[in-house]
């Protein structure tokens, strides 16, 4: 895999705490701004209006009627159907009818081609569904206001918060309907495209990852190994025939991690780097040492194994191993027994490169304990579930935005939010906020551009530039705030796991995406409700 799943780990208590701070802050800002506006426009009586409205809103919130919400959901659903939202199936049909033409010859199916098929289906399904949802979510309420058909709803006992909720659920349901039909067809398409003889390539491996650290050629610990000059520094390299090692620690190792025959299955995808070519017909070799971290003398080292670059390779270690006529049990002798300092069940694994002056590269996720596989459909439907959550998120943001601004602006706003939710934009914003981007903030960058100054040129220290930097830092803090309300879609993209033959992990993908989606429910509903309640519906 070309990424470390642990990057996506969210600590739920910390996430909830963070959410409460941001949501609380925004609520406070909205309330203060509303109060000030009323005070300015209505004078002292503004206080009364403010509290009456606030109490009215709270009443609405606590007197929601599922029946009315369901009626509005059905209305949204029927409206979308009449607007021919399901015409997207025509595009989908065309795409899948001819996709086979673009995807190569299925007679020569390779493991890598399976990856392309799965990626294609999951990407196509999500790219076709999301625009439909975005348009329906952003244009529904503004169209109702424009055509004044909203009056037929608001004059009924339905509350405005129920309109917002009904819209959100209705749009999401249309999205889920489209998604589920496409997913079933997509699943059948994948299975049909892969010849019967290659069906075993459709699998869901279940990995257990450990923590890795590296030792340099003198045997000193460090976070990373050697950089051999790759542009993509995902993997670190260890030098052959030296004390350089990659050391993993696997936690909670017990019998559930053994296969049905009682073996420990270690799978790796190491990379090879030669500082000289040498005998090219001879692969580079590595060995694996399993050891007890409480007593490193108790260890077992495998025979040298050839590196199988860009592919997975399994090393099957029997539970009982013999070293110098002494038999060890992996679970009883090589894992920790547990003490005050070291928890129970930790297994140490050390990887060494055998060949002198040659290097083997690895990242944390390149070595894992392989648990029994799950059927392909398990991972596939988890990935679809991730897309379903994205549909819900987009519909919530879209509906909330459409209550505040006109439909096209709401569509652009939602689309921009979605684009900015990617991994790279978030990384860039993180760097900006942390001051890691050379060239400074907005004003400083403008100054540098105009004056043709490079990003590394020192600026003169004078009061004007101090003001510029203070202004920039205020904007950066505002950016930090904005960044908190832009979702992180990297959690939702589960297709990479499935395409690479892995199950979608709960801890690194499903739980984070569920948390992110949940985090947006209350703010989006309340914002939509607040905007619709305060909006003049006569104004088009």
């Amino acid at each position, binding site marked *: 895999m070309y990424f470390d799943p642990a990057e996506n780990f969210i600590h739920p208590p910390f996430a909830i705490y963070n959410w409460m701070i941001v949501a609380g802050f925004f609520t406070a800002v909205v309330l203060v701004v509303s109060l000030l506006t009323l005070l300015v426009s209505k004078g002292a009586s503004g206080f009364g209006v403010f509290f009456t409205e606030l109490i009215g809103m709270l009443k609405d919130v606590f007197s929601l009627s599922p029946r009315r919400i369901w009626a509005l959901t059905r209305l949204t659903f029927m409206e979308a159907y009449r607007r021919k939202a399901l015409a997207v199936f025509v595009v989908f049909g065309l795409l899948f009818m001819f996709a086979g033409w673009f995807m190569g010859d299925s007679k020569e199916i390779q493991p890598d081609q399976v990856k*392309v098929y799965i990626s294609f289906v999951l990407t196509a399904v999500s790219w076709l569904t999301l625009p439909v949802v975005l348009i329906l979510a952003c244009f529904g309420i503004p169209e109702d206001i424009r055509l004044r058909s909203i009056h037929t709803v608001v004059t009924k006992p339905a509350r405005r918060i129920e309109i917002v909720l009904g819209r959100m659920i209705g749009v999401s349901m249309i999205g889920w309907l489209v998604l589920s039909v496409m997913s079933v067809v997509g699943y059948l398409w994948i299975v049909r495209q892969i010849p019967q003889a290659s069906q075993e390539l459709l699998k869901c491996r279940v990995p257990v990852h450990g923590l890795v650290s590296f030792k340099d050629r003198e045997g000193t610990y460090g976070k990373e190994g050697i950089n051999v000059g790759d542009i993509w520094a*995902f993997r670190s390299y260890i030098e052959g025939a030296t004390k350089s090692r990659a050391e993993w620690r696997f936690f909670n190792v017990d019998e559930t991690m053994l296969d049905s025959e009682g073996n420990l299955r270690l799978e790796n995808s190491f990379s090879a780097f030669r500082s000289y070519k040498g005998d090219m017909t001879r692969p580079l070799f590595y060995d694996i040492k399993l050891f007890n971290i409480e007593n490193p003398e108790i260890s077992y080292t495998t025979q040298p194994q050839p590196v199988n670059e*860009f592919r997975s390779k399994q090393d099957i270690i029997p539970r009982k191993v013999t070293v110098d006529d002494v038999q060890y049990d992996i679970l009883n002798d090589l894992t920790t027994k547990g003490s005050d300092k070291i928890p129970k069940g930790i297994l140490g694994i050390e990887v060494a490169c055998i060949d002198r002056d040659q290097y083997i590269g690895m990242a944390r996720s390149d070595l894992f304990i392989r648990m029994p596989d799950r059927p392909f459909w398990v991972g596939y439907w988890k990935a679809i579930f991730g897309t379903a959550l994205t549909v819900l998120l987009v519909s919530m943001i879209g509906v909330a935005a459409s209550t505040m601004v006109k439909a096209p602006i709401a569509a652009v706003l939602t689309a921009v939010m979605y684009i900015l939710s990617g991994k790279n934009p978030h990384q860039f914003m993180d760097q900006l906020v942390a001051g890691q981007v050379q060239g400074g903030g907005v004003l400083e960058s403008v100054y540098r551009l105009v004056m043709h100054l490079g990003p590394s040129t020192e600026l003169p220290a004078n009061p004007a530039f101090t003001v510029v930097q203070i202004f920039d830092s205020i904007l950066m803090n505002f950016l930090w705030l904005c960044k908190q309300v832009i979702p992180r879609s990297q959690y939702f993209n589960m297709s990479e796991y499935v395409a690479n033959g892995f199950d979608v992990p709960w801890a690194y993908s499903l739980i984070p995406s569920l948390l992110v989606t949940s985090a947006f429910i209350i703010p989006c509903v309340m914002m939509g409700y607040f905007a619709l309640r305060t909006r003049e519906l006569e104004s088009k």
Partner: protein
Amino acid sequence: MNNMTSQQRKLVYLIGIIVLLIPIIWLSLPSDGKNKPGGVLSQLRSQYELGESDLGDVDASSAAMNLVLLGMRGVAVNMLWMDLDLQKDMKRWAEMQATTESIVRLQPHYEKVWDFNGWNLAYNTSAEWDAVPDRYYWVKQGAKFLKRGVERNKRSTELLYRTGKVIEHKIGYADESIDYRRYFLSDPDPAFNKGPDPTINPEGKDNFLVGKEWFDLACESELTRPQHILDRSLFRATPARCQFDYAQSLQKDGKFGEETRAAWEQARKDWTEVYGREIYHAQIGAEESDIRLEMTEDEIKQVAGNPDDELRVRRAVDAYQKMTNYRYWRTRAFAEAEQDTAEAHRSIFEAKQAYKAQEFDNARKAALSGMEGFDKLLKRPEYAILAEEELLCEECLLGWKIWDDIYKVAGEKIPDEFPLKWLLELKQGNEQLMASVNKQFRRLFQDNR
């Protein structure tokens, strides 16, 4: 405002549409393929060979993609190229290949796209893999990709050349060429049942001979469609040079019989009778005249017309011959046809094999025999020119290196006089040549590991 009703306005629009359609239909009338040339657009398309089918095989999916994207093709292509670059950096080869496929569907007639991606697969991607069969797979992918490029762009001389180059140069001269050349005849992929991959080698020939066929096609195409890769004289030498490569590779493989002799004889014919008789244009006096690399005295006089121009013709021919190293290869072809030369090659080959097998006495004897053979050959005035070229000198000096090393290992005194001593003294200052000899010598050790 006017007084027309809605229906009347619609009728007016309809008439307007029909009136405008008439010239469009007239301009774009299709040809019937026989007598009627069709409309102006059709005639112009035929005149400038701009039709999809004139450019190469028609790929329906590619044409459909381009039409569907309307004016957004450029944007889509840019995004795909960025993806390709990222996937290459991240070593996501499957995705990279899929992106390459998408790019060529959007830019099927942009030759550089085929050229760049073919090279990328054959040279860059293959080098990223560690196992030799994996490397060969990607070299093949590059060659197959370029071959498809040729099918889609029948007017491209350069893609024909590039395909030949991958098959001749990458397979024939990579560090792993011994394995690649073997795999070219017997593919490591079990799907081919130990035979060649029919897509790039349908007749199971040597890679240099297949490369030669591609270069022949490129030279044929070059007569009508110019190339911008090499000077024309060098470009047209490529088929014959492939034949030389083939003959030399047979010797490297330890084949010194009739097959090798025939290969050299064919190389001589290709060089002197085909390539040597090609016509080039040179400025002789005020006019441009046709010259050949291989010209008889009568032909020179006939082209020149007067004694002054005769000198100019000789100079022009000489300049071309120097640029293409013509005389060396001609002499080499003649020399290789001699039995003594074949024996000298055989002796050096046997010396290498014996050295690898650590049979030092046999290796020394064979190396000395080879050195004597080449010493005799290079001292003959008609073959003296061969000492100027590095390829043959490398082989001679490798023979000496083996011979010299055995003396050193045995702790014996090296004789003061030995065959090829003069060549060693002459070339000792040539660092590049000596480095190449040392590299080949080191490989004899590595093979022993």
